[in-house]
């Protein structure tokens, strides 16, 4: 187990390095410069200030030297200094981490809490009314533009019904989390409902289910004792892959709901050419995704005894 984890962590090193390289190269050729970060978009920037900033941030060096320096400081856990705020990127990201984690896990929790039972119910009566309705809902949930859905939710639940606040992080309370999390969670929910349904349908035709039935087991017990755990393996795979997509979608949802996470930091930084912050944010997103997937691989072993960490 431990050696498995160490191996997994070592495997991620080249990926992380490649990500750093790709982003670094990408943003070395990006139009707009350091001057843009000092600009308000409303008037001319003091050219002297721009020159000084360049010097201060070491932007006069050639790209490969900057890259080398960046990697060196990364190794020390230092993500560099933001062009825009002149704060260490590490601390900027640290402040954004918790809201994003809250949002992502709330969205996944919502997706699992609704999607998995929905998929189960649908699969137990395939072709039934519940099945048809939930699958129509699921495929619709996958087909709607995320920010439009968010706006509609905001409009209905905040403005028309007045149940929930429409924006922001507020004091970090749960009620602020609901709308963004639901907007973000709808598509993984839909996906999970479909995966679960397909998985359960497949499992229900398995031989061991027939064995279980021949034991004189009720369908409820059958599902609880035999189907669920088997379905969990497939569900887990979907959940793991969804984390990546969710980190991407979070960018849109965070922006829409003024949610102070990594996603909105990333968009701000991209639009304002704050390259260290962009690199830092993307790197953190990638690390998060890799961590989650390692955790899920570990979970596989817990759920499915056939998987061994050789």
């Amino acid at each position, binding site marked *: 187990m431990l050696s498995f984890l160490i191996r997994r962590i070592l495997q991620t090193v080249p990926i992380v390095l490649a990500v750093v390289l790709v982003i670094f190269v990408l943003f070395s050729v990006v139009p707009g410069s350091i001057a843009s970060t000092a600009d308000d978009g409303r008037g001319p920037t003091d050219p002297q200030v721009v020159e000084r900033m360049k010097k201060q941030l070491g932007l006069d060096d050639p790209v490969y030297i900057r890259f080398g320096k960046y990697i060196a400081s990364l190794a020390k856990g230092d993500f560099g200094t933001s062009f825009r705020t002149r704060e260490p990127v590490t601390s900027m990201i640290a402040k954004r981490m918790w809201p994003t984690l809250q949002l992502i896990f709330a969205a996944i929790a919502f997706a699992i809490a609704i999607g998995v039972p929905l998929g189960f119910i649908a699969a137990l009566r395939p072709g039934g009314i519940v099945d048809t309705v939930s699958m129509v809902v699921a495929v619709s949930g996958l087909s709607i533009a995320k920010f439009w859905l968010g706006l509609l939710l905001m409009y209905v639940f905040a403005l028309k019904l007045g149940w929930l606040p429409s924006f922001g992080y507020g004091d970090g309370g749960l009620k602020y989390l609901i709308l963004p999390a639901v907007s973000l969670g709808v598509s993984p929910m839909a996906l999970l409902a479909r995966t679960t349904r397909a998985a359960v349908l497949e499992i229900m035709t398995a031989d061991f289910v*027939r064995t*279980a039935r021949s034991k*004189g087991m009720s369908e409820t017990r059958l599902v609880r004792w035999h189907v669920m755990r*088997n379905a969990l393996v497939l569900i887990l795979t979907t959940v793991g892959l969804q984390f990546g997509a969710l980190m991407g979608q979070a960018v849109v949802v965070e922006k829409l709901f003024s949610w102070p996470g990594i996603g909105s930091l990333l968009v701000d930084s991209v639009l304002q050419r704050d390259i260290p912050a962009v690199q830092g944010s993307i790197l953190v997103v990638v690390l998060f995704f890799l961590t989650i997937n390692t955790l899920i691989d570990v979970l596989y072993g817990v759920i499915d005894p056939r998987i061994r960490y050789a």
Partner: protein
Amino acid sequence: MTGPALIDVEDLRIDLNLGSSRVAAVEGVSFHIDRGETFGLVGESGCGKSITALALIGLLRRPLSVGAGAIRFEGREIQNLPAVEQRTLRGNRIAMIFQEPMTALNPVSPVGRQIAEMFVLHGGKSWRDANRLAVEALASVRVPAPERRVKDYPHQLSGGMRQRVMIAIALACGPDLLIADEPTTALDVTVQAEIIELMRNLCAARGTAVLMISHDLGLVANFCRRVAVMYAGRIVEQRSSDDIFRACSHPYTQGLVDSLPRLGSRARLGRSRLREIAGVVPAITNFPSGCRFNPRCAQATEVCRTTAPETTMLGADGLVRCHHHA
């Protein structure tokens, strides 16, 4: 014979629902098994023997369903019983072993638990007691070191071991009838013999009746007191095992018998090849008219092609369905 048979199947028809139409996959099947008796159902794959077994235990799933006929367990019609009672019958009084030991066990559950389930379901035991009983059950099917094996997962066991686990599950509650659907087909030959021996001994000791289903006439005749031969959804001949080799009446049965290697016979007949039955099993949707065996039958005449043969009783215990029975 006193009282009703343990199980009594009468004129059973199983329909295959194809959406727009339905065809009978099995029809006119009647047989009975007495307490402690061993009964065999033989036929090529697709003849309907497995779904007949599934009908007995109430496990037919769409698109298959019982279309007509009666299945009586101790004189009571099973199909009319409420679902709860059907379930108490299933596993508890009627148990089943399947062909595929590789897949018939839940891969993510320890085998001990899968045995213990039986005691929880039917014995009303706590999991703690049930787990203890599971060790005993595993010991009774002669699995070495059962207290360790109960914690194993199916993939950690060999095919033979898994089939022993299946037997342990099936016999856990001391059922009256054990349905064994090709229990040894997927196993190595040497293991086959061990498993058959095990079943024979356990069932004999407990007085469990066995319905053995196989394509292997030799195996069935060896194991069972009586044998029914199915072809294309119908029972074509039913005999005591002793009679079937000596004096089978149906050309199909004869074909099965001829295709068996017989000890000693090889020497006498020289190194001749085993005889095979010419032709293929007809598709369920396309059964021939008249006698369903007629396209493959050497003795077929005009009447065979037009008229389905009636059942002819042969002595007290036998029957045959052939226009030309000997």
